[in-house]
């Protein structure tokens, strides 16, 4: 190791260059630089591990970039190595707040390929449970949204009232969050004794809860100030980004797959209203979900009244083999449009599956939506879009 320094290279430096350099340095230092802030992957407002790289000028967002994939579990690949009955266990975990609603379209796809149709009672129970999981998701949202704009108490009310619904789902399926209750051709079990009356009682409570949220959160002036005019999604932009579900209906697009899509379950027998709001801002998204919670309660009541008797399982072979073919099913999940493209080569499991999950498309609008808003509005917008990380990353 040499102890002497290498000789300095000789440059012929113009002394004026230093002055220019110093001036340039000055100019840089006096400029207000942007600050890059990492929201997440560990951040209370991201419901999990969404990372949002935000470029800030003061408190104003110049650009925002969502980074996803921290929770990627590779379900589209995993399902290729499993049989159809096993797959429901996996796809339960996509949107973990409304697991039952995830199972339905996949089972629907398998049944379509096999040419099997579940008996009416099974279809009714499926519809009831789908709507109950919608209610549980939305009731949690109604409280959670309050928490994200700073009110602590509604969150606890949300969890409390969701508990009633989760208990109902548990009573039928045995699972609070991951029921795994659907079978190709029907359901695992029938409803337990006394469940119908219990459900009516709970629906009454949910009605009251909706009134509470309307007073406590939606009726609050500070909540109005925080949400009205914040995060406006114009209908054509929303549709272009693939935003769906309540988020799109809050922009005034009257589109609901339960009514407008290919018929599935028994929604065609029901009388229900599709709620829309013309504003497209965060408040509209809250309001639409509030109304849809009530509407779901009405739908479940109708279903309970019209619940037919009969078997809950169609005749299916013991080992389920799905004939060759491909099918696309899409349904209106609590978070938006959810679809499965199932490609079968006649084995006991699918050859390929493409999962279209709602939250993935819903958050893809974030870079467009978050430009120019303030940091607190980022949280409001994230909360009002209402995504589930498992639904983004799959």
């Amino acid at each position, binding site marked *: 190791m040499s102890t002497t320094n290498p000789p300095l290279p000789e440059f012929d430096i113009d002394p004026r260059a230093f002055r220019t350099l110093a001036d340039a340095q000055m100019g840089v230092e006096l400029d207000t630089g942007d600050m890059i802030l990492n929201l997440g992957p560990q951040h209370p*407002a991201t419901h999990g591990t969404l990372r949002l790289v935000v470029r800030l000028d003061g408190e104003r967002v110049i650009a925002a970039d969502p980074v996803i994939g921290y929770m990627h579990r590779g379900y589209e690949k995993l399902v290729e190595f499993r049989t159809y009955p096993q797959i429901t266990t996996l796809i339960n975990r996509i949107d973990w707040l409304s697991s039952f609603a995830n199972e339905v379209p996949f089972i629907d796809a398998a049944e379509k390929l096999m040419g099997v149709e579940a008996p009416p009672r099974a279809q009714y129970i499926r519809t009831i449970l789908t709507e109950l999981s919608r209610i549980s998701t939305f009731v949690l949202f109604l409280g959670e949204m309050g928490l994200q*704009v700073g*009110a*602590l*108490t509604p969150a606890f009310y949300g969890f409390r009232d969701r508990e009633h619904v989760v208990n109902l789902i548990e009573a039928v399926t045995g699972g609070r969050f991951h029921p795994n209750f659907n079978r190709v051709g029907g359901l695992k079990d029938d409803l337990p004794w006394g469940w119908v009356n219990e459900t009516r009682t709970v629906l009454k409570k949910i009605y009251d809860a909706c009134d509470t949220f309307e007073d406590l959160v939606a009726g609050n002036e*500070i909540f109005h*100030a*925080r949400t009205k005019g914040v995060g406006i999604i114009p209908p054509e932009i929303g549709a272009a980004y693939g935003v769906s579900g309540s988020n799109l209906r809050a922009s005034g697009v009257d589109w609901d797959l339960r009514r407008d899509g290919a018929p599935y379950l028994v929604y065609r027998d029901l009388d229900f209203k599709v709620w829309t709001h013309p504003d497209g801002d965060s408040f509209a998204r809250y309001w639409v979900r509030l109304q849809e919670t009530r509407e779901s309660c009405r739908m479940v009541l109708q279903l309970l009244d019209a619940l037919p008797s009969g078997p809950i399982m169609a005749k299916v072979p013991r080992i389920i083999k799905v004939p060759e073919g491909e099918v696309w099913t899409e349904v209106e999940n609590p978070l938006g449009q959810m679809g499965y493209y199932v490609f079968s080569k006649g084995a006991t499991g699918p050859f390929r599956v493409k999962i279209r999950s709602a939250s993935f498309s819903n958050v893809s609008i974030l870079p467009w939506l978050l430009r120019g808003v303030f940091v*607190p509005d*980022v949280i409001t917008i994230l909360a009002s879009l209402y995504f589930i990380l498992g639904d983004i990353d799959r």
Partner: protein
Amino acid sequence: MSALSFAVDIGWGTTLAIKTLVILMIVPATALILGYTFLLKMMSHMQSRLGPMDPGGFHGWFQLVGDGMKFMQKEDIMPAEADRRVFAMAPMVVVVSTFLIFLVIPAGPDIVVKNLNVGVFYALAVSSLSVIGVLMAGWASANKFSLLGALRAAAQLIAYELPLLLAIVGVVIQASTMNLQGIVGAQSTGSIFGFDGLGNPYILTQFVGFALFMIAAQAELTQTPFDMPVAESELVAGYMVEYSGFRFLFFFIGEFGTAFAFAAIAATIFLGGWALPASWGLSVGLMRFVGPAVLFAKIMFVAFLMFWVRFTYPRLREDQLQALAWKVLIPIGLLNIVATAILKVAM
């Protein structure tokens, strides 16, 4: 008028020692009382849950003491990039400002550490020292969330000093003194249009001032709906995000101690302080013992209002907060002063 002169004549050194001890005890004690009563129990019951039930046997009264012990055992974590000395000093600055407020609050006819002639002015002046600690904490933590929180806190505390002061000016005009004992006395012996059954608690005659004071105090305490500096859903905990263990405990004590101090100021200048109406005819000797209890009851009432709002409302946005201060509260405060002055001269 020393704190214990009514009891025995003791030397000034002993008196000073006792006063210091009382002030040092009172801040953690009040933080515990408010934290337990409102943060743990009242909030829990509002949110349809029970809160802590086991520690200490009776409704979990020991929970916060246990929490405090836990904080003392925690590792003292300091970020590698932090400005170490400033980081360590910041919580103390915040707590010291709380200690200083309690010096001038009278709890009885002669139970007061220092009966300053400019008591109100002094209390508000030292209460705003905490913003320096907050800024120090946010800057020294070398964390972007802390920095955002601290800058928000600074902007907010400066903006809300004004309505706080303007709210009190009406009272000072009416009582013709800035001395807190004087204000208590004026409320006790006063009368409203000749009716002296209740004295003249300024919450009745200065209601606008009281409302202004409560709103501004809520902002000074960074409580919901003005809790943007600590906004847990956006900035996680703002300027406190890097603090742990004992230093965090300091912030906690500072937060609730200051809440108690502001409630005490409000109780003193708007609700009559330790005194009951003079027309009720209670002797001074009796008030020496009843006074602290009366003051405590009034403080708890004011604190209840503060925490009720805190647990109910969502949070405003930073720009809306500034707009509220400069466009609404300050004009109302000025009008209130004008109206009070006119009435004072006319009547």
